[in-house]
């Protein structure tokens, strides 16, 4: 049986206590998108700036939620800043792949392991334990879904 330690790794709690890139960006020019977890009320606001090379030049995170959703958002912001939209797409797929086991059964798109891009997840690996707590997967993926929407809207 998975224990609490599998879920709440030290690094997660660290990001929860000391969230990176917390704040706002003026919008416009930044893209501002809100994401909701309709079932539990978690909210993430992503502020995003893309430069002319489709690179994330700046990102800020607002909103409120549990340790998993907030730390996931914090780690995400650190991982994507300075990267191109294409790189972030790979990272997102890799992250969702790590989370996909149960999401697929809830109707989300499932990603077959073979298709996963070969990307280093770094700190984000710490969230692997979340898959053992299926209800919390939506907490971990909320920031990523919101980011994807922000990128879509910023590139549109």
């Amino acid at each position, binding site marked *: 049986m998975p224990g609490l330690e599998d879920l709440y790794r030290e690094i997660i709690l660290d990001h929860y206590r000391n969230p990176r890139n917390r704040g706002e960006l003026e919008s416009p020019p930044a893209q501002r998108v809100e994401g*909701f977890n*309709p*079932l*539990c009320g978690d909210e993430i606001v992503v502020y995003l700036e893309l430069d002319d090379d489709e690179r994330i030049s700046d990102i800020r995170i607002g909103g409120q939620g549990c340790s998993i959703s907030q730390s996931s958002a914090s780690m995400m912001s650190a991982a994507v800043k300075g990267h191109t939209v294409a790189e972030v797409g790979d990272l997102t797929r890799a992250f969702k792949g790590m989370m996909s086991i149960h999401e697929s*059964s*809830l*109707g989300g798109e499932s990603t077959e392991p073979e298709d996963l891009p070969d990307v280093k997840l770094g700190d984000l690996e710490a969230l692997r334990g979340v898959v053992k*707590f*299926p*209800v*919390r997967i939506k907490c971990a993926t909320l920031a990523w879904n919101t980011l994807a929407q922000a990128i879509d809207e910023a590139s549109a």
Partner: protein
Amino acid sequence: MALTSPLDAERIRADFPLLGREVHGKPIIYLDSAATSQKPNAVLDAMDLYYRTINSNVHRGVYQIAEQATNELEAAREKVRAFINASSVAEVIFTKNATESLNLLVQSWGRANLVEGDVVLLSHMEHHANIVPWHMLVAERGIQLRWIPLTADGQLDLTDLDALVEGAKVLSVTAMSNVLGTINSVRTLTDAARAVGAISIIDGCQSVPHTSTDVQALGADFLAFSGHKLLGPTGIGVLWGREELLAEMPPFIGGGEMIRDVRLDGFTCNDLPWKFEAGTPAIAEIIGLGAAIDYLSAIGIDNVRAHERMLTEYTLRTLSMRFGDDIVIHGPTEPEHRGGVFSFAFKDLHPHDISQVLDEHAVCVRAGHHCAKPLMKLMGVGATARASVYLYNTTADIDALGDALEAAGSFFAF
């Protein structure tokens, strides 16, 4: 000619507790599955187990039993998806019964898309559930209803289908009549609808439990059916719809579960399928329906159909042989064109009186208009007696029906 079935009905019967009971001191002969089916132990046990071990509200709980309940509910949705071969669980919406499924369509899709004068094509053999909601929209919107007529032997008369469907916005028909047993050529109908740009809705109440259903091959846009006729519990129905259409539709019932956000000044909807599932779902019933589908799938729905085809042949033959002109079995004469539903007239006895005498012999058949009054009118009767079979019925049940009919004939012999 020997009639064969791939099923061992005797073994199957042992799974259905009610079939072991007696009525008026005689073993019950249940011939009313078109009204509601009996339930196997597997279904009752699944619901009981849910209540005894993981009962809790779904989709919102972080604790273990709530998570298990959510998983089991969503697993049942996946079972339904696979059973009808829908392309995604987002297309499988749980309702309380097929009637609600059809009303949801009329009130959500219909109100959003139909205006005065728009034509909806129904058939003369529809159940009230596929008539009254449209009448309500006629009253509200001034849409128009057209009716596909029937042939003398109770099949859809498609001679003028092109003219009938011309200009229609919606085609809504049953895949199988709950009165005549007629199996309709759904694909012909949905093709005709698509050709004129109409959406098509299939009432699968009588077909889904008895024949294999592949919504992607059906050519339809929506399908409605009930759990209680499918070995499942009461209180649960299904609406399948094509995702593109469901995504565009406004919500039907508003409340918890179906929202993404609610503010004082408005709300936004949740994703499919939850957008159409407001309030606490019928959790135990959904899990029970999942168990029913597991049970049916293990037996094989094609085997069920083959068994009922055999029973149909046996019934048509035996009753005509025994009663000759004293019995008239309505509907198609070819077993190929019909399911195991037999509405009949017997001598000049009223269906109620027949059913009353049959009950004395523990034979359960339905008597009445079967929620198809327009069809009754067309047939020129007020009511019929109706016997209907399912996988657990045997030729012995049909013999018992024959014996009881004989007794009814004698009782009322003037």
